[in-house]
């Protein structure tokens, strides 16, 4: 039913969608010009969580890789930034980029054991890798063990710079997933999601398709983590490699709608606003996050965006080819 509506939708392509997109983009870019510092900070977080969630969604929603170990790349990205700027005096933005490259390299290495596992085992395996890294970094004298590192260089960038960097990552992640799904790789992914056996039967190499997604997601997550830690200033193993990161991403994607491009956008907005309003009541806000995701999962398993799409047959960013 939903599919037919989607097809009908493709025929009546509406150019005004692009105008809405541009309007929102323009609004986001103008924020430092008129908004308060607090608003800028909130939207900085929005851009960063959007990028992180979009990458988790690429894995969980399109590739079937439920990673409970995204904090691997958040931690490694953050530590790369800290080590490169502190010990090697590299420029900040180059260090952040290096974080992404190292994360992609690490992902390639991790794919050797992790890609032998599937489903739940992959989820658990990725989490155990993150826990292993957490213990490794908390015992490693080079990175000051559990004390963590102080990213001094973070004070040389302005709030606006961090804001623009985060919005760039947010918008880039949307564009990346959108373009990716339009390519041959995206077609392969959607074919695999519907039926792995049939997809492999027509010659799709599902291993390579998954590997590409894993590498791309870890690269973008690593870079985003670098920008995130320009905000946090202090990197410490227990928080950088904590499962809390994946909890947040999971919440964002589930609320918004798993397997949709718009889902993480709505989810990230809701998450960041909730977090701000409930900042003083940390444990209550987490109880609320947990309850909301359980209720959404029971009542609207497709999330807000998925449910709306089903009801109205409307998609802002359709990965389907016309």
């Amino acid at each position, binding site marked *: 039913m939903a599919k037919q509506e989607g097809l009908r939708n493709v025929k009546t392509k509406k150019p005004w969608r692009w105008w809405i997109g541009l309007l929102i983009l323009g609004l986001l870019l103008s924020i430092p010009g008129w908004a308060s510092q607090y608003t800028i900070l909130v939207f900085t977080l929005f851009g960063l969580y959007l990028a992180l969630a979009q990458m988790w969604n690429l894995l969980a929603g399109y590739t079937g890789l*439920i990673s409970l170990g995204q904090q691997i790349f958040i931690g490694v990205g953050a530590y790369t930034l800290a080590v490169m700027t502190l010990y090697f005096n590299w420029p900040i933005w180059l260090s952040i980029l290096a974080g992404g490259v190292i994360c992609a390299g690490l992902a390639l290495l991790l794919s050797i054991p992790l890609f032998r596992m599937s489903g739940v*085992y992959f*989820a*658990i395996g990725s989490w155990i890798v993150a826990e292993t890294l957490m213990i*490794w970094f908390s015992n490693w004298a080079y990175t000051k063990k559990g004390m963590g590192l102080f990213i001094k260089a973070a004070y040389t960038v302005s709030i606006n710079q961090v804001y623009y960097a985060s919005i760039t990552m947010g918008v880039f992640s949307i564009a990346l997933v959108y373009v990716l799904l339009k390519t041959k790789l995206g077609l392969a992914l959607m074919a695999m999601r519907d039926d792995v056996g049939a997809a492999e039967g027509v010659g799709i190499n599902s291993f390579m398709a998954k590997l590409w997604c894993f590498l791309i997601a870890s690269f973008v997550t690593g870079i985003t983590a670098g920008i995130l830690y320009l905000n946090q200033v202090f990197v410490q193993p227990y928080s950088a490699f904590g499962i809390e990161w994946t909890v947040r991403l999971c919440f964002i994607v589930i609320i918004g709608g798993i397997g949709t491009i718009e889902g993480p956008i709505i989810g990230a907005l809701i998450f960041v606003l909730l977090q701000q309003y409930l900042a003083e009541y940390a*444990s209550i806000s*987490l109880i609320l996050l*947990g*309850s909301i995701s*359980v209720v959404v999962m029971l009542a609207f398993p497709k999330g807000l965006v998925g449910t709306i799409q089903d009801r109205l047959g409307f998609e802002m960013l359709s990965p389907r080819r016309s």
Partner: protein
Amino acid sequence: MQDVFQPLINGILLGGIYAAVGVGLSMIFGIVRMVNLAHGDLMILSSYIMLATCGILGINPYTSLIVALPVMFGLGYGIQKYILNRVLGAGMEPPLIVAFGLSIILQNTLLLIFSPDARSLQTSLSIKSIDLTQTVSIPVIYLVGFVFGVGTVSILQLFFRSTFLGRAIRAASDDEMAAQYMGINTQTIFAVAMGIAMMTAAIAGMLIGTTFTFFPHTGPQYLIIAFGVVIIGGAGSMIGTLAGGLILGIAQLMGAYFLGSGYQLLAGYVILIIVLAIRPQGLFGKAGRAA
């Protein structure tokens, strides 16, 4: 060389405790084909239930099982029946995420009620030990844990082998449709299985509480240990659970002995990743089950 026996003995005894920690997760993984990500937090919840019971009634932790076992059974039954059963069958993600949500709710509710302080269940056994030689001794609390762990796994093995309910649970797990034709309500069976798994969580919670300290966020740490036991032993295999517990316990304490105490957990994780990569179905698991 003499003192390598001490970590070895402790590792074996710790393995028994780990078997109790992992057996509930293994059961649910094997029977319902679901990973209960809240299992660790439910164990810690029962530790807190016992802490409260001991405080109010003034009884010792072992007696407080009388309260904790039925409470945890009811809780497990309810969670499975009214929440988790409703998201089964729609792929692997929904139950995973719902259990994840429950885990967050539990942790933070405990934090609100009990504060982040480390707690423990006090018993007079915790300082006693039996000297074997001049340098090697058996800590009594570990020995009690080992006995409880092995006992729990053995009773479950017997239960699944020789009772009607146990066989019905296995039937529902092997072929849900066929079991339904035979008049078994698989939804209720799953709820009962979760109830039993939560009773093992109560026992595990007691062992954790009496042997170590716990605080509201300890759950995930024991969840990972439970995963380790399940991964090494294979899902749903009771003997495997025991073997998994022993291997993990010994690996951890040997790691700590040879590399330093900071690396105790690391040694366990490395073993896990190796087993996962080489034999993802576990050392004792059947190939192709519980994907």
